[in-house]
């Protein structure tokens, strides 16, 4: 061990709630068939121009009977957490259980109504949503809210791992969600970061990202009764100290997070059998990430990006992609990167264009975001 702790962190259960399905199993089945949630949308409430994204149907009811007046963001969290908790045996009322919520923009779409008063500001606050969700299930502890751009989901997992290792809690329910609205869409448009078609992560023709909606929940525990389950083995976070809206030129800082995550997990590069990359399909991100993976000595390790299926689900992305990759670990089936054909950086990353049967023990999940943030987490058997 790296010396931090002998405490293992086990994955109890999880949920992915996306336009592709309401459970992890439904999602993985769709992904195995090569189905993508990314479609062209004409939705003037979000954008005056058509756009490609993975969105829930406008009339889709996320919670069957919602007497609480929850927003769509909160409904996604509640539905995802409810499915993950169902039959898990986790007692949310136990003082040893903590709820962690990750999101980039939560209820920001409420600003679009043009009203600007103190009630609205309180309603938009991520703390308000976290409190409502905690009360819905009866969590006794005050929830922790992570809002750290596109690494929020991975940072939620790392925060949980550390709180559990320190013995502060025995179980952690980590849930993330984001909803795509005009606020977010117009911002990415103003950055010219969106692809005019389905995104192509790590492909020569990569030309921007697609946005996506989704929620996901992962429940972690230190209880030895889950000792046969997949473990969260290590994680690390870094900052580029380079630019607030562009990634590192070298990828050294993400590479540093990967190196420290490996050290934390007491593993070496040869123990990593596949990589779930951030892979947003913007040229800047993909190049930086490819450099970081190559600098880490992982250039031969099979890698995928799931952005072609889900788009970039922002605060949920790190969770959704970790949970899908846990399924890959369990089923020895690593998914292809849809949208990818010809490598942009063949010498730096081994991107999977086809599904691959891999008897894997461990995988690496990476994420990077605005503000120069990077995160790496390792899951394994």
């Amino acid at each position, binding site marked *: 061990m790296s010396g931090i702790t002998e405490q293992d962190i086990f994955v109890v259960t999880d949920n992915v709630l996306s336009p592709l399905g309401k459970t992890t199993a439904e999602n993985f089945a769709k992904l195995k068939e090569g189905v993508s949630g990314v479609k062209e949308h004409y939705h003037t409430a979000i954008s005056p121009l058509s756009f490609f994204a993975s969105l829930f149907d406008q009339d889709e009811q996320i919670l069957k009977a919602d007497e609480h007046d929850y927003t769509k963001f909160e409904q996604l969290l509640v539905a995802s957490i409810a499915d993950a908790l169902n039959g898990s045996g986790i007692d949310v009322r136990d003082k040893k259980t903590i709820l962690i919520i990750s999101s980039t923009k939560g209820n920001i779409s409420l600003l679009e109504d043009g009203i600007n008063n103190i009630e609205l500001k309180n309603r938009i606050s991520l*703390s308000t949503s976290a409190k409502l969700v905690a009360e819905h299930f009866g969590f006794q502890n005050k929830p922790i*809210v*992570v*809002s750290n751009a596109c690494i929020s989901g991975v940072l939620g997992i790392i925060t949980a791992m550390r709180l559990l290792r320190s013995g502060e809690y025995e179980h952690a329910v980590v849930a993330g969600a984001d909803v795509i609205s005009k606020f977010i869409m*117009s911002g990415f448009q103003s950055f010219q970061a969106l692809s005019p078609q389905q995104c192509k992560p790590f492909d020569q023709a990569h030309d921007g990202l697609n946005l996506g909606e989704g929620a996901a929940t992962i429940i972690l525990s230190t209880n030895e009764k889950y000792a046969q389950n997949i473990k969260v083995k290590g994680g690390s976070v870094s*900052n580029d*100290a380079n630019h607030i809206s562009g990634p590192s030129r070298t990828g050294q800082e993400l590479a540093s997070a990967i190196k420290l995550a490996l050290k934390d997990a007491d593993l070496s590069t040869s123990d990593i059998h596949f990589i779930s990359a951030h892979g947003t399909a913007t040229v800047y991100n993909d190049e930086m990430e490819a450099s970081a993976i190559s600098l880490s000595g992982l250039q031969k390790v099979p890698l995928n990006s799931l952005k072609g299926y889900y788009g970039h689900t922002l605060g949920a992305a790190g969770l959704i992609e970790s949970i899908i990759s846990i399924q890959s670990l369990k089923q020895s089936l690593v998914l292809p990167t849809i949208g990818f054909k010809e490598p942009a950086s063949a010498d730096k990353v081994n991107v999977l264009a086809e599904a691959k049967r891999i008897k894997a023990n461990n995988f690496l999940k990476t994420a990077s*975001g605005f*503000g120069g*943030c990077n995160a790496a987490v390792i899951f394994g058997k």
Partner: protein
Amino acid sequence: MLTEKHIAASCTINKGAVNKNGVKLFENDTDIAALLLSIYQYQQLNYPKFYKMDNLSKLGWLAAEVLLKDSFKKDDYQPEETSVILTNANSSLDDDIKYMESIKDAASPSLFVYTLPNIVIGEICIRNHFKGEQAFYIQDDFDADFMAQQVKYQLDNNISQACICGWVDVLEQDYKAVLFLVEKKRNESSVEFSAEKMREIFNK
């Protein structure tokens, strides 16, 4: 595994006043934009990027400048050894509202980039070349126990050797920043590191 930890310095910007280690340095009871500019001028800083920042980043960045000046020996640490952990109540809502206004004409990418609370961490990291751990959490009020726990984990496990942590919150004319520099070594102005002490400084 447990290591010594000290609050090597603290800085508070609140109610028109800038305090360093409990001593008032500067006062200017005016609106937030004028206050932030006057602190920048008072500190005789020369950092053109400052003018591009939103108020949240300006406030946090200035608080970090005051916190670190004469208190932090950068050469004592590798870039990866310093972490930044911040919290607030209003996320980036101050800039979110301004960005939303801009959409009516043309969405402004320079406002959009600040619609994330962790951008202030990025600004502090760029200025000081910090490449270590970082995290932004949203809380109703400053949770000193949570923060102490996070910092303790960083330092006790040698993930970081120094940690800049605290609270940076802005919403229109309401603002408050309280930053702490936590190090393993003691200096002449350091005080004990504890949740109670952070709470006491925060509420002063």
